[in-house]
């Protein structure tokens, strides 16, 4: 892979503070300091339709990136390629220089109904991914206990998913993604099928987890308020072939609450993002 060639690619987003430092040259693998995921020369077509053509992106470590853009610009496609569940035609995606298969990831699907395993109890669903980690039995149980405690779960996890509400199922799905202590967390519109109350509850729990232990997170959202509210950076995408329209930092302190959405900073970031979004939609 000739990642070096793409070094000066204009659309590569850099975390602030990283841009002015010269990128580290690690032989054939180059990435800016503080970067976790590097995407170079990504190329993806669906039939005659080119979705990504030479797409470059740097994703900073331990930050939450909200991905927002026009319909059909390939937000889910992008995170699925990064997560390694969708093949891409050309390009390179590395996690701290590692391949996705050497990286612990957690993935939360929008459609929780078809993501949890209905033949297992909720607690066994949460336990399931631990079988792929080399941990002792005691360690595994300790992890589950910690997670259940930090989520402050009020429901009986010995129920089967179909005995639970949609929000509770999505909570199980989120806990299943977090139990492996992922290096990268993918959230594909995780709240879009849930009611407002449950959405707020899950957002709060997620924030709590992030504060306890920052994890690089990619969140696809079609709700700009939510995208900004949860984000350290809002990644705005253009119509396809998809480019980066902007990469907007939002560094309001955590935990954020309803008041956060009234601060001038929030309104500025949201306004700016909306402006760019509308510009891209009109194109």
């Amino acid at each position, binding site marked *: 892979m000739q990642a070096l060639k793409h070094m000066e690619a204009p659309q590569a987003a850099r975390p602030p503070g990283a841009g002015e430092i010269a990128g580290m040259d690690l032989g054939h693998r180059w990435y800016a300091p503080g970067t976790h995921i590097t995407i170079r020369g990504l190329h993806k077509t669906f039939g005659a339709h080119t979705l990504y053509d030479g797409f470059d992106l740097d994703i900073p470590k331990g930050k939450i990136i909200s991905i927002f853009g026009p319909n059909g610009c390939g937000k889910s496609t992008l995170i699925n390629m990064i*997560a*390694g*569940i969708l093949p891409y035609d050309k390009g390179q995606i590395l996690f701290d220089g590692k391949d996705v298969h050497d990286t612990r*990831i957690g*993935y939360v*699907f929008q*459609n929780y109904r*078809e*993501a949890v*395993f*209905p*033949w297992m109890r909720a607690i066994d669903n949460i336990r*399931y*991914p631990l079988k*792929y980690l080399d941990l002792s039995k005691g360690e595994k149980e300790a992890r589950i206990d910690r997670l259940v405690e930090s989520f402050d779960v009020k429901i009986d996890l010995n129920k*089967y*998913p*179909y005995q639970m509400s949609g929000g509770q199922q999505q909570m199980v799905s989120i806990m*299943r993604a977090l139990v*492996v202590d992922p290096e990268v967390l993918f959230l594909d519109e995780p709240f879009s099928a849930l009611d407002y109350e449950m959405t707020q509850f899950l957002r709060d729990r997620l924030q709590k987890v992030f504060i306890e232990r920052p994890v690089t997170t990619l969140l696809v959202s079609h709700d700009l308020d939510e995208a900004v509210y949860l984000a350290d950076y809002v990644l705005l995408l253009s119509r396809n072939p998809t480019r980066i329209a902007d990469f907007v930092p939002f560094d309001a302190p955590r935990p954020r609450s309803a008041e956060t959405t009234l601060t001038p900073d929030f309104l500025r970031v949201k306004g700016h993002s909306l402006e760019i979004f509308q510009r891209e939609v009109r194109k």
Partner: protein
Amino acid sequence: MKSSEELMSKLQPVLGLFLLVVFWELAFEMRLVDPVLLPSPAQSFQAFWHGLEEGSLWADLRRTVARTGISFAIALVIAVPLGILLGSSDKVYRALEFPIDFFRSTPASAMFPLFLILFGSGESTKIAVAAFGAALAILFATAYGVMNARKQRQLAARVMGASRLQVLSDVTIWESLPQTFVGMRSGVSLALVIVIVAEMFIGSTDGLGQRILKSQMVFDMPDMYASIFAAGALGYLLNLLFIVAERRFVHWGGK
């Protein structure tokens, strides 16, 4: 008022049966049909009871159950792994879909002569044909279930680090279970049908099919009805057994 409604709702399931017996009794009393051809319900029930008591109906019933059970077991052992294999590869499935669908649609009874040549006129032919019929039903259902496994659940397992084989064993097979059970239910019914027919026409000295045919030939009508009833009850119970097993083992199905 309320209690009489409750009583009605409890009686409803047996109401149809009750009406049938009343209608049968009336037909018998009014001599609508020659009493030699249609004995009274009481006579038929007596024959059924007698057959059980002196043991010959039991013995025939047991033979039929054994044949059906063995053919079903053979079918299951062959068809489930093959169905999983077939369903997990699009290419293999597309190549074999037509011949399998064709044989599945072929009446298994049409295969009797062929199986007679292959297996002779003994026990093995009856079991082989019944197993053949049941296996195709199970094979098709299993393959269908595997092919229609939710892709997202498989992706979820893969993203957690499951290998292809682990996706198959942890997700795909579970996903296909509801369909497999549907196939097993139709498979066991089919096996019973074929076993009964085989007992009638392929040199048998025992089994319900043979008993029905024999009592018809000697005009022992009460015993014929008793044997038909035994075969019906067997089919009904088998179906019930599989429904209960299905609820137990695929409790998440349809939810």
